[in-house]
């Protein structure tokens, strides 16, 4: 490796580690997010819901209900609260409750938004409780690694981390260099342009590996998460993810010389994928036509493939298709980005 590449990589390393903010957002923030979400949705906290009952509470049947599910330390708790219909509607608007009950002609009527899945499941549960049937529910908690929310979350966060790292780390860095006229200053020297891009690529790969390993290590220590499938497949996928999003970053940052426009462009790429690609909650809740598109978004492809390896034990062979797809997207974007690249 020539001296210029080494010096350029040193620049990337120094500007990364000497900026505490960068280290925080790139490395610590994903870990923090995993920790908070992991705890919030872990089995330890149980499930708690409040239901408003319009009219008098019937002390015999309706009190606080607590369900012990076999194998879990905590319980599912449903609180009942007496309220007027007006209050109930207001609470629903605020998201405090998803369902309320009225008593009509000796029976119960359930009021809720029919597409709200949480309300639907509460309806079914309540119907059994109020009919005095709760006792014969047969339920067994699934707690094996690979099936918990944290198992769903961590591979998604890894994919999200790679995307953020490439777009903010690489993309924004290029825009900033152009804004500072550093790019222009650099091309006025005999610096080889390939050295410049190679240094960025090598650094980005290294930093994404580091960020991912830290997150994985944390998930292993705190939640016992392990990669059930192929490590080789995992690493291939990681590399493909970096190639893909670095390519996208290069394209996004190829011409912009204004940080506000750059900010907007990067967010225009990041936000839709962060929201749609099922990082925090499954995208299978979206309408079917939307899913058909969403499943091919690069972030979805990457997150789904990580989940297959981490949770379903997929092998290296099974990841070939997503790896190929991501690398192709990355290469096409890179070529377009390089062709368009403005040094000044």
């Amino acid at each position, binding site marked *: 490796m020539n001296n210029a590449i080494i010096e350029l990589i040193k620049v990337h390393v120094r*500007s990364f580690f000497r900026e505490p903010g960068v280290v925080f957002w790139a490395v610590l923030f994903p870990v923090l997010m995993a920790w908070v979400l992991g705890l919030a949705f872990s089995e330890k906290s149980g499930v708690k819901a409040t239901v408003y009952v319009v009219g008098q509470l019937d002390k015999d049947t309706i009190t606080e209900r607590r369900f012990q599910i076999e194998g879990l330390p905590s319980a599912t708790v449903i609180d009942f609260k007496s309220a007027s219909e007006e209050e109930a509607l207001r609470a629903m608007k605020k998201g405090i409750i998803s369902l309320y009950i009225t008593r009509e002609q000796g029976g119960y009527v359930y009021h809720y938004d029919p597409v709200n899945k949480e309300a639907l499941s509460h309806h079914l549960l309540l119907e059994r409780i109020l009919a005095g049937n709760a006792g014969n529910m047969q339920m067994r908690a699934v707690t094996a690694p690979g099936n918990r929310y944290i198992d769903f979350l961590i591979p998604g966060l890894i994919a999200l981390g790679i995307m953020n790292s490439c777009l903010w780390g690489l993309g924004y860095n290029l825009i900033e260099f152009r804004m500072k006229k*550093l790019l222009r200053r650099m091309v006025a*020297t005999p610096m080889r342009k390939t050295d410049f891009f190679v240094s960025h690529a090598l650094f980005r790969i290294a930093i994404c590996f580091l960020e991912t390993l830290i997150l994985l290590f944390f998930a292993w220590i705190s939640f016992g998460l392990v990669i059930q499938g192929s490590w080789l497949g995992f690493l291939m996928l990681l590399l493909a993810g970096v190639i893909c999003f670095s390519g996208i970053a290069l394209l996004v940052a190829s011409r912009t010389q204004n940080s506000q426009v750059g900010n907007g462009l990067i967010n225009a790429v990041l936000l839709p994928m962060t929201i749609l690609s099922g990082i925090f909650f499954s995208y299978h809740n979206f309408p079917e036509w939307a899913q058909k598109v969403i499943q091919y978004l690069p972030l979805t492809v990457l997150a789904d493939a990580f989940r297959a390896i981490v949770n379903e034990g997929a092998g290296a062979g099974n990841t070939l298709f997503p790896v190929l797809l991501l690398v192709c997207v990355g290469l096409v974007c890179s070529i377009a980005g390089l062709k368009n690249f403005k040094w000044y």
Partner: protein
Amino acid sequence: MEPAIQLKGVIKSFGDLQAVKGIDLQIRQGEYVALLGPNGAGKTTLIEMIEGIQTPDQGEIVLLGKTWKRDSAALHAEIGLSLQETKFIDKLRVGETARLFASFYKLSAKRVDEVLELVNLTEKKNAYVSNLSGGQRQRLALGIALLNNPKIILLDEPTTGLDPTSRREIWTILQELKQRGTTMILTTHYMEEAQVLCERILIMDRGRFIAEGSLSELISQYGEGDVIEFSVREKEVPDMKQLPGFNKLVWKDEECRGRIWVENLALAVPAFMRQIADSHLELLELECRKMTLDDLFIALTGRNLYE
């Protein structure tokens, strides 16, 4: 000896706007040339074409016998430049920044130390770029421009925004380089800078050179002697044509300010004062001086050099 820089019939347009309208220029090796002109005169476009980052639509640019088309690698190694306010990476130290650029030229650490010594930044070698003062930053930019021991240096306003002491420090460095036979084109907003550093001054306006020569040559060639600059409370143009040795009056309505070019201050000033009194004008400011570049530019174009 072949000229360091030679331009023949250089034209460059951006859309409908012709920024550079057919320029011929020859700069010999070791010559320091100042390029002056108001914003939008085409200075930057001209410099960028010499720098090789813009291509002329027509005409030819030859640097040390080489052209950008054929010998760009060789030219990169022989030219040093400092852009108007290059911002280096904040969290990089001075030495690290210089080493990065040195690596592009395949230069040793020894050369980095030499250059830092030359621009008086040896003590700041371990300081972060973000902690440098304006003058130190400009010296770093200059040092980086000089790393490869360039035969030609192109400096775009190297002292803009600096205090007089920092400005003089940079002048001293540049004067030292002149001893070694470096060729320089300097764009500047400071007349004094052009005067101190450069044997030739080019004044550019609307894509053309409108005057050229040393300061004294310019003044004797285009000069109209001394200048009386004044401002009054009243808006109407005072009649000064009767002053002895009157050459020209440029009047600015919005500032109630005028400049009069006269052959001899000693004769013109008493008459000027009488004229002011006779016209019942209230004199607010008065300055009498030998003509400067700015006066010259206004005499040539009717506009300020630095508007």
